[in-house]
């Protein structure tokens, strides 16, 4: 299969590879996919509690080149956006940007899922953190 130049670029130079402290209240973690399906993405965001701006994003992906590129691109795109803005990123935007062929569309879907899962985790965590704080006092 021929890969687009953008996929190749993200594969060769993946952006924002790494791990954030998932126990931090400011960090949301999304882990999507499954090893038996051949792709697992973990996308993490660190959100400024004051502004709700995603100040940092990291990923690690087990999967094909297109899956790696989709998640790498997702971290680039969410950075600097507010949580609400990041939720507006659609898998079709990723397909277009990376020129993914039809058989690789699921990679972009997974990347969108990863963004939503990370934000969902961050939202839940902050809710949970407040509740715990109340309970212990």
């Amino acid at each position, binding site marked *: 299969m021929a890969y687009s130049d953008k996929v190749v670029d993200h594969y060769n130079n993946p952006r924002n590879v790494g791990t954030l402290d998932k126990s931090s209240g400011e960090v949301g973690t999304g882990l999507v996919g499954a090893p*038996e399906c051949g792709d697992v993405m973990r996308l993490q965001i660190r959100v400024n509690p004051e502004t709700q701006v995603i100040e940092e994003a990291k990923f690690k992906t087990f999967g094909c080149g297109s899956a790696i590129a989709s998640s790498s691109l997702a971290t680039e795109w969410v950075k600097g956006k507010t949580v609400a803005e990041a939720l507006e990123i659609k898998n079709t935007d990723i397909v277009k940007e990376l020129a993914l062929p039809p058989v690789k569309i699921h990679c972009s879907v997974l990347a969108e899922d990863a963004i939503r899962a990370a934000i969902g985790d961050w939202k839940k965590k902050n809710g949970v953190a407040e509740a715990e704080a109340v309970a212990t006092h």
Partner: protein
Amino acid sequence: MSNVTSNPDVPEGVSLPIYMDNHATSPMDPRVLEAMLPYFSVKFGNAASRNHSFGWEAEQGVEQAREQIARLIGATAKEIIFTSGATESNNLAIKGIAEMYRERGNHIITQVTEHKAVLDTCKRLEKYGYRVTYLPVKADGLIDLDDLRRAIDDKTILVTIMSANNEIGVIQPVAEIGNICHEKGVIFHTDAVQAVGKIPVDVQAMNIDVLSLTAHKIYGPKGVGALYVRRRNPRVQIAAQIDGGGHERGMRSGTLNVPGIVGLGKACAIAQEEMATEAVRLRAMRDHLRARLEAELDYVEVNGSWEHRLPGNLNMSFIYVEGESLLMGINDVAVSSGSACTSATLEPSYVLKALGLGDDVAHSSIRFGLGRFNTMAECDYVADKVIGIVKKLRELSPLYEMVKEGIDLSKIEWAAH
């Protein structure tokens, strides 16, 4: 295709790209091409033309090839039928026997890691009222001979078991299977595409009744193969699947592909001469490649029996790295993967799954297929490349990180998609 990685320093003895996918097909040996060339031009006759020298010349080329093929597998020339390749040979053998022996029975036995040319042919026969038993394989890829004995009943007309597997290179106990079939009076066909010319195959010693082979896996041309059909003890009959001029003793009509057949014959003659020394060389390179990969990488597994394996085959899983992404990083090396992403069906290798491997391990598999024209320097180059890319991709792999932290991946509730 875009250039994924640049290669500033290519070592001595290595010319890129490297072809290491010899189970898929093999490059033509120049000696084979040389033997074929006259049959494209001056010796263009139809081997079935009985009345002039053009026909005789072509026929001579064909008959010499028949001898060369027969000699390599311990058969006689009259027992060799030419076809367009192994897919046709397998179809002709299985359908032709099923049709011819329908009165005697309707039961066929095969096994789960056969090539699709066998499995899909058997599936079609099931639609026509045949009963097919698909024997399982053990974790090492070998069938259990007791399973085979138990599966044979009074309606069994055919056992079709491959000699060596195209993905994992595992060699089935062909002689033992042949013995069991002969004891029970059942015809034994073997798809020997990967075995012929690589390891000794003797239809007499191994009690093989029908055998499929092809030229392009043994450094010959594509589009030509053969079927060995036993003529005595017992005499096997096959119903033609292509009707026409009655060529090939009525079993396969159609004007013979003379240049291709000459090439197949020459390829067999070379294999007969060189197989023993070539096997030693291939095994040494293959073992070296494995040793280097295992020395520098953790979580690697060889898939299938190591002992019963073709000399040029290495099938390994690089756990926590997905196969297609690995191939992408070594794009100047031609190998193949059992990953779903590399298959037309988007399913991981059914062969690896039949060994009981999880889909995740199948997704991580790479098949190295070494052949006549590979060198030790190439093996080192490939080892360096694979080691580098696997390490890089594991830096990117959330699974590898989690396992290193001591997390049991099987305990995680993955959201299947």
